[in-house]
Every structure is written in C-alpha cells, then in structure tokens.
C-alpha cells in the first residue's frame, strides 16, 4: 500500500511544483519558483531511488490508478507498471531533471521568463514520468504527446524570435507525423488484441504471431509487422530518426538546459524506451526489426557526418545526439533491447553533461555560440573544460568509460545479428565511431585549445546588436558575445555543480552496470527476446567475461583504433594544420554543399509537404468551396430558381381567362390520370 502512494508521488511532486511556478508565475518571487520545482523533482528522485531498491528486492507492480474511460468492451485506465525498465528510466529522468533544474538557476538568471521556465521543465518531468511509468498504450500516448507539448513550449520559449517559433511549430508537426503512425499502431493493437494493457497484449501476442490482415489488394500482411512498423513510426518522430529527424537540430533554438534535458537525455529517447517496452511484439516481426536496424543505421552514420561541419556549439552536440539515437535504434533492431536501454542511460548522462557544458561555455562567452570565435577556453573555464573532456571521452567510447561499454556492446550485437540489414548497420556503426570521435574532438579542440579567437573587434553581428536593448532580455542565446579584450569566465557553482555530478556517472556507470543490466537478470521478465530467431544477444553474452576484461580486450579492437584515429585526425586537422580541412572543403565542395544543406531534407519538406499542403488547401478552397459549391451549386440553384420564377411569372398575366384556361387543362390532366388509374 505504502509503495503505491510512493509511485503516485513520483509524477505528482513535479506536477505540483510546475503548478506553483506556472499558475502564479507573475506574482511569486524567483526563489519560490525554483525552490518549489527543485523540491518537487528532488522528491521524485528520492522516491525513485526507494522504488528502485524495492524493485531490486523483487517487488514489481502493475495496477490501475483510475479508470479513464470505458466504452463498449474496452476499458482504458491510467495505471503504473513498475519494473526494472521503468525504474531505470525513472532514475535517469529524475536525476538529469534535477541537475538541469539546479543548472537553470544559473543559466536563466537574467531571463524575465524565469518562473515560466521552471514551470515548464517540471511539467516536462511530470509528463515524461507518466510516459515511462505507464502500464498501457493509452497513457503512453498521453505522455508521448504531453512531452511533445512541453517541448513545443520550450523550443518557442523565446517567443519573439522568428527562428524559435518556426522551430517549435516544425517540431510539433513533425512529431505529429510520427504520432499519426503511432495512433494507427495503437488502433491495430486495440482492434486485434481487444485491450491496450501491456500485460494483456503481451500475453496474447504469441497467439497472434501468425495472424495476417488484408490491407491492400489481395496480399496478406503480417499483423505484427504492420503494427510494429506503425508503432515504430511514432518512435521515429519522437526519437528523431531519418527522415523525421528534421526537427531536432532546429530545436536548439530553445534554451540550453532543455536541450540537455529534453532534446538529448530524456524525451528523444522515449521512442527507444517504447520499442524496448514492446519487445514481446517486436520480437515477433523480423521485418519490423530489419526496418528498424536500417533506419537506425542511416541515422547513426549520416547524421554524424552533419556534425562535422557545424559551427554552432549546440548544433554539433545536437547532431551527435541524432547519431547516438541511431545507435540505440540499431541496437533495438538487433534485438539487443537491454543494450539499447543501457546506451540510453549512459548517453543520458554524458550527453546531458556535454550540453550543459556547452551551455556553460555559452554563458562564459556571453551568449556567443560560434565555435570559430572560441579557442583556448581551458584556461578560463577549468571545471567546464575538464567535465566537457570527460563527456567527450565517454561519448567516443574510450575504454572503461560509460559510453565505451554501451557503444561497444551495440557494435558487437550488430556484428552477431543476422537479420536483413545487419551487415549495412555494422558498417554504419563502425564508421560512425570514427565520425563521432572526429566531430566531438573537433569541437573540443576548437573550444578549449588552440588560439584564443574571442573578443575580436571584427565580430560584426555582435556590434550590430549591442545597442539593441529591447532585444536584450528576451533574445538570449544569439546576438551577443564578448566585447573586444573581454575574457571568458568560469560559471557559478549552480552551473558547475551539475557538470561535476553528471561527470561521475559518465565515467563510472558503464563499468558498474554492464554486468547486471546487459548480461545479467536485471531485465528478466521485462524484455523478451526470441533467442531462436534472433540469437545475437545470446551469443554476445557468451563472449562477455566481465567489465575489466571487456575494456582490456577492446584496446586492440577495431572500434578503439577508429575512435583513436578520429581524435588524432581532428587534432591534426584543427590544431596542427587548419589549412587541410579548408582545402578538403574546397576540393569536395559538392559534398560540402550537400552537408551544408543537411541533405536537402528541409528544403524538400518545405517545398513538397508544406508548400504542397498550402497549395492543396488553396485549390480545394478556391476551386472546391468557392467556385464549384458556392459558385456553381448554391448561386447556380439560386439562378435556376430565378429563371424558373421568371418563366412562371409569364403565366401570372392578371387576365382571368388565362387562369381559367390553365385551370381547365389542369383538371383535365388530373381527371385523365384518375380514370386511367381506376
């Protein structure tokens, strides 16, 4: 009984914080807003730790909180499923959220929307917790869209900035494209399983494994494949997989704390979580898994390439997030669900760290985000420097650090997978290792090492906006920078403390967790793998001989060599011989243009989908409604009525004999009919 109250407390505490900060944002002082929300999230974190221990002791839970709706034979409930997968996500979400809340005190210090911001991030935490704790598809969809809403609100947080309000709408709509597939998937689940409860659906899944449905023509489609692909389209939207990835880079218009929390550590991993949660369904469709592994591989590699040419510090991290989400998706496709969740967790720590580090750099640089204007920051911002280095090393998979264990497990799992597409995926994730190391250290070197390029007088856009005081409060991230001669400065403790606290798990969590989480019984009964059809994980565990052995062994392995060469090449290119990348850029200008334009996805979408929809709307409106329905039919029938009445008017001559004559004819006709009928 006690535990159930605690389960409720986890999402509700942040909700209460959000309501205090949100509903009264205009009357309460700042300290009330951040105290209330931080207290809410801290309570949620502590409660999550207690629940985690309880679950480890074997006490899982699955039950309803209240009945949302009943209709026909269906019962829709709001309820919780508490198991190791849920608690893992709860810990990650509440911990990162707590770090971000603290960090925000420093980052948003000067912003007039301070209280509103705290309200949003707490509301996000609530929504995300409802999503991961759900025991049914309906509530999952609730949380799914609710986090999308908060993401929308936060990307457009600086609502006067045209780029921000474009980006947030784009994010919402692209996510809605994913949700379109998702809701069809949920509809198929309800139609064929008769319930939206995970437990009921998963138990019934093997019975329906061979079911086919007729969707198009005479062909029989596997129910599982169609359902799983529809559900995965939802994940593609939320977890930004190609081609629905286009919203994530633009989401960097939002303040940096939410880039760390929402667009790196938690919300974007909801799709990964969802597929892992649905493993009993996805395991029944190799077709869907193949689709997933290919999409993931494309995202992992090609989004990584884009990271190489970015100059905005946040965008580099954003593309790296896209690429890492691709890695997680590849793991899902290889049926290595536990590895995907493991990478999700390690990534949440080191990517949140990298983002918050980038935010710290941005504060230090007075809101200049261009890495070409940085350099040599390690002298001025030592804590940010060290923690960012830790984050980067973890990201590229340095042996014994958290990212190493998760990423290497993914690569190994893909190597052992035999589903169609696994060969391509293996190539993509291997090549991705080099790319990741290259762009990560390109950024690291350009920011923290080398020549100090900041405070230059020729920083044109800085001057242009300096006198613009109206703008100063609301438009924050861009348009500023260091004045000539000004030096960057280390950020206050509320900013650096979260960096340090995130750096610790970024180093250690992989080493600690890999044994139990990936190769142990941690996810027993939660994640289901058909070892007969997809034996990759089983083979992988045969090779595993402990975390230390894995680290030592890797030092001679291909991924390590690739990562190391990525670092060395980027050092050589950007520290030693900066003329080389410039020459390459000139030499391969076609490829550079392709990358600059992000493979033309945005232009294509803008022209074909957005433009097409507007054009279609205009055609249907002007052509259909105005011309045909109103012009032809409505006004046309009015004209016909007018025409008929103009004719009948001819009969209304006013002469009695005309009327009498007409009457006689009428009576005659009627009588004839009457007689004939009889």
């Amino acid at each position, binding site marked *: 009984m006690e535990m159930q109250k605690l389960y409720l407390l986890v999402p509700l505490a942040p909700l209460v914080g959000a309501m205090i900060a949100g509903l009264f944002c205009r009357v309460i002082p700042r300290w009330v807003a951040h105290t209330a929300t931080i207290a809410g999230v801290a309570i949620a974190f502590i409660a999550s730790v207690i629940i985690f221990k309880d679950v480890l002791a074997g006490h899982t839970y699955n039950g309803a909180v209240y*009945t949302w709706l009943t209709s026909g034979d269906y019962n829709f409930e709001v309820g919780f499923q508490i198991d190791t997968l849920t608690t893992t996500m709860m810990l990650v979400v509440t911990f990162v959220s707590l770090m971000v809340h603290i960090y925000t005190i420093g980052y948003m210090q000067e912003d007039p929307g301070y209280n509103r911001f705290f309200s949003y991030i707490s509301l996000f935490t609530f929504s995300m917790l409802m999503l991961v704790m759900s025991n049914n598809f309906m509530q999952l969809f*609730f949380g799914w869209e609710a986090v999308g*809403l908060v993401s929308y609100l936060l990307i457009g947080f600086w*609502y006067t900035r045209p780029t921000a309000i474009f980006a947030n709408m784009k994010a919402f709509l692209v996510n809605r494209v994913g949700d379109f597939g998702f*809701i*069809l998937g949920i509809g198929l689940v309800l139609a064929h399983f008769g319930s939206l409860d995970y437990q009921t659906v998963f138990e019934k899944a093997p019975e329906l494994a061979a079911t086919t449905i007729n969707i198009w023509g005479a062909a029989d489609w596997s129910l599982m494949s169609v359902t799983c692909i529809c559900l995965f389209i939802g994940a593609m939207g939320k977890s930004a997989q190609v081609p629905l990835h286009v919203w994530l880079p633009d989401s960097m218009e939002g303040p940096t704390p939410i880039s760390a929390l929402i667009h790196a550590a938690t919300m974007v991993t909801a799709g990964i979580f969802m597929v892992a949660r649905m493993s009993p369904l996805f395991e029944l469709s190799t077709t869907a898994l193949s689709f997933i592994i290919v999409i993931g591989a494309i995202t992992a590699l090609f989004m990584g390439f884009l990271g190489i040419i970015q100059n905005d510090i946040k965008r580099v991290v954003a593309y790296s997030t896209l690429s890492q989400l691709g890695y997680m998706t590849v793991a899902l496709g290889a049926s290595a669900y536990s590895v995907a969740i493991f990478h999700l967790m390690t990534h949440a720590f080191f990517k949140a760290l990298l983002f918050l580090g980038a935010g710290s750099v941005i504060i230090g640089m007075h809101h200049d985000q261009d890495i070409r204007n940085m350099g040599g920051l390690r002298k001025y911002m030592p804590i940010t420097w060290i923690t960012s280095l830790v984050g980067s090393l973890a990201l590229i998979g340095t042996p014994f650090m958290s990212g190493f264990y998760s990423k290497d497990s993914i690569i190994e799992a893909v190597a052992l997978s035999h589903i169609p597409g696994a060969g391509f995926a293996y190539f993509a994730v291997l090549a991705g290792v080099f790319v990741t190391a290259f762009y990560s250290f390109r950024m690291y070197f350009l920011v923290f090492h080398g020549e100090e390029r900041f405070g230059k007088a020729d920083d044109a856009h800085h001057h242009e906006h300096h006198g613009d005081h109206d703008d100063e409060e609301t438009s924050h991230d861009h348009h500023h920078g260091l004045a000539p001669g000004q030096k960057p400065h280390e950020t206050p403790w509320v900013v650096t403390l979260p960096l340090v606290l995130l750096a610790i798990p970024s180093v250690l969590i992989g080493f600690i967790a890999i044994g139990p989480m990936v190769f142990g019984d941690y996810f027993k009964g939660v994640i289901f793998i058909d070892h007969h059809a997809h034996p990759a994980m089983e083979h992988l565990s045969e090779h595993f001989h402990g975390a230390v052995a894995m680290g030592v062994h890797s030092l001679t392995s291909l991924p390590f060599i690739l990562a190391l060469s990525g670092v060395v090449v980027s050092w050589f290119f950007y520290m030693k011989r900066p003329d080389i990348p410039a020459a390459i850029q000139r030499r391969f200008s076609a490829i550079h243009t392709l990358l600059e334009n992000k493979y033309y996805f945005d232009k294509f979408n803008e022209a074909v989908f957005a433009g097409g*929809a*507007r054009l279609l709307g205009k055609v249907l409106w002007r052509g259909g409604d105005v011309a045909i329905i109103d012009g032809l039919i409505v006004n046309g029938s009015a004209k016909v009525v007018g025409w008929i009445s103009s004719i009948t008017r001819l009969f209304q001559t006013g002469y009695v004999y005309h009327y009498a004559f007409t009457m006689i004819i009428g009576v005659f006709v009627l009588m004839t009919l009457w007689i004939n009928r009889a």
Partner: protein
Amino acid sequence: MSTYPLLSLAIWIPIFAGLVVLSTGGDRNAPLARMLSLAGAVAGFLITIPLWTGFDVANGGMQFVELGAWIPRFNINYHLGVDGISMLFVVLNAFVTIIVVAAGWEVVKVKVAQYNAAFLIMSGLMNGIFASLDGVLFYVFFEASLIPLYLIIGVWGGPNRVYAAFKFFLYTLFGSLLLLLSLMYLFINSGGSFSILEWHKMPIALGPQIWLFLAFLIAFAVKVPMWPVHTWLPDAHVEAPTGGSIVLAAIALKLGAYGFIRFSLPILPDASHELSAVVLGMSLIAVVYIGFVALVQEDMKKLVAYSSIAHMGFVTLGFFMFSPLAVEGALVQMVSHGFVAGAMFFCIGVMYDRVHSRQIADYGGVVNTMPKFAALFMLFSMANAGLPATSGFVGEFMVILAATKFNFWVAFAAATSLIVGAAYTLWMYKRVVFGDVTNHHVAELSDINKREFAILGVLALCTLGMGLYPQPFTEVMHASVNDLLRHVAISKIQ
C-alpha cells in the same frame, strides 16, 4: 425519478426568462436586462443539473418522461424525455447559455434586451429539440430555433450579415422541408402516430427506407454541416457576433448530428447500413478536405469555422461505424467540440473586441501585451489540435481507434487530422500570438479582464476535466448506445 417536470422547466424557464428580458424594452434598461438574462440562464442551467445527477445509468430507455395530449385530432403529443444520448446536450446547452450571456456583457451595447432574449429563447427551444419524443414537437422546436439565430446574425452581425443570414436560412430551410415531408410519410405509414419511439419500431421496406434516409441525410447534413453542404457555416460565423458563433458552434451544429442518431439510425437501420459508405465518405472528405481548406484561411473565424466542420466529420464518421466505441466517441466529440469551439470563438471575439479585425495578418505578437490570454488561447488551440489531456483528444481518439477495427484506411484518413489539425491551429496561433509586436493595435492591447478570464477559465476547466476524466460523460451513454446499436443491427424489412 424526480416528480418535477424537469424537462419542461428546462425548456420553458429560459423562454419565459427571455420574454421577461424582452419586456424591459429599450437600452436605458440595459443593466437590468443583463442581470435578468444572467439570472434566467443560471436558473435554466441549475434546473438541468438534476437531469445528470438523477440519471439512471443502467437504464437505456427514456427518462424524465412527460406525456400529454397536444393536438389530439392528429395524435400529436407533448411528449418529452431524455436518454443517455440526449441528456448531456440539454445540460451543455444550458451551460453554454450562461457563457453566451456573459460573453456579450459589455460588448453588446445596442438592443441589449432583444439580444439576450433571443439567446434565452433559443436555448429553451434547443432544449426542446433534444427532449422531444414527438415528431411534430421536434419539428416545431427544430424550425423555431432557426428564427432567433437568424435574427442574431441578421441584426447584431457584421457588414455582410444579411447575405450570411439569408444563406444560412435558405440552406437550412431546404433541409427542413425534406424533413417535414419525411415526418408526414412516417405519420401516414405508422398508422397515424407521431411518436418517434413508435417510429423506431415500425417496419419499413428497403425502398422507402432509402428515400427517407436520403431526405434525412440532406436535412441533417446541412445542419452538421457535412461536406458538400457546409459553405454556409464559414459565412455565418464570420458575420455572427461572438455569442452567435459560440451558440452556433457549441449547440446548433449538434442538432444535425443528433438528428442522425435519433431519426436516421433507429428508424431506418437497413438504409443506414446500405448507405453508410456514403456518409463515411462524406465524413472523411470533411476531415481531410476541410482540414486543408482551413490551413489557408486568412480570417481567424473562417479558420475555426472550417475546423469545426472537420471536427464534426468525426461525429458522423463515428455514428456510421456502428460500434459502441465509435458512437460514444462521436458523442464525446460533440460535447467536447461545444467547449473547445465555443472557447475558440470566444478567444477570437476577445481579440476582435479590441482590434476590430479577424484577419490573421492584422495580428502578431499578442503574447507580449496579453500574456494571460495567450496562455488560455494556447490551451484551447491545443485542445482544437486534439492534444491528450484535453477534451478534444478523447472523441478523436475513440473514433480513430474504432475506425482501425472497422477499416484500416478509414482510420488512416481520419488520423491525418492529427497532422493537419495541428498544422492549421498552430500556424494560426504562431502568426497571431507569437513573434514581436507587429503594429500599434497589438501594442495597445490590454489583457483580458476578470469577466473574460472567468469565462475562459471555466471553459478551460471543462476542457481539461473532460480530457483527464471522461468517464462521467461516457458512463451515462453506455446503456442507451448499446440499446441503439442492438436495435440498429436488426433489420426492419419484412
């Protein structure tokens, strides 16, 4: 069951209040007229609450029945009653009347008594429609309710109001004539009964069923309005004053849909099955086609009017899939649309009162001067886009899920509203509310006052409450919807 004639009171209290308000005469008594109107509307709402609280959810039949002879010679009766399908609309209608009276409080300055009286009388007449169990009584209420709405648009409307009122009147009149003919046919062939419940039971051959179905379809499709007889609605909305738009969207559009479920389905079950594809097709066109049309509107009221048509597409879609989930989803959508569309039109009215323009291009950056308004407008826009935890989600979700079972491609087409609905709503919101202040009108805007805040706040609570806990709304429907669907499944051809 209550011994008071609650339904009669729900009908006649607002009408009586309307007549009292009318008697205050000219505008020098405007404050009195307002107070009396509010009192009448509140009394009318309070009297409907026992309908919900005293409703027996296990009973699928008619409740709170009142029966008395009206014109014995033609067997026409004053026969009232509500079931799980109609009860909520009586309550919703009475609730919306309060909103409407409050919405016009300071805004309507000419012919105040007449304005409020028109709404009160209309409210009573519409309750009559939902409560009538006699064909003639239904028809009288159905037609009479047109008159106040016609006057509201024609007298207090915008510059092009005469055209709009006329188009509205002609369109609906055309449908009404077919309805009357159908009722006469049913009277004659039922052996002289105007009882709707008798008609539910009478056998009819397939041929006449088809003809009657088409007549009903035209009559009710105009009111819903369904594609392609929808073009009067955007014009009517554009010209109507805010209160008129609210009633039009929240209640008047429900009358056509209610006609389908009270007449077409139970009286003509075989024709309903035969011709369901036609209605489903028209509904899906409404959802998809109208969605794209809404996207390119430049007038906010037109945009929301088109979005209303698209949302009502879900209602007719749900009715003709003949499953409890679909039908209840459609009914939920009807109630929700009352809150959400009503609120959207009120929001536009709030801006119109200040700037005197409905053009999207005349706005931009409203959030800077009206932050409280922007927050509430955001909530209703999201509800309009069907965001979970708002009422706008519940009905669409139920209908889409039911559609997947019915036919994957029907669900596919319906689910596009997730994208298109979000696109037109958020694009409008972005252009109107976000951004820098674009002109001096927007710069001079004052945020919502206490009255406006109260109206939007109450509607926000309704929207959120229904989104988070729709069970109280659906549990009253179950028995009646199940009875209806059992009935519709049985052929009437003998």
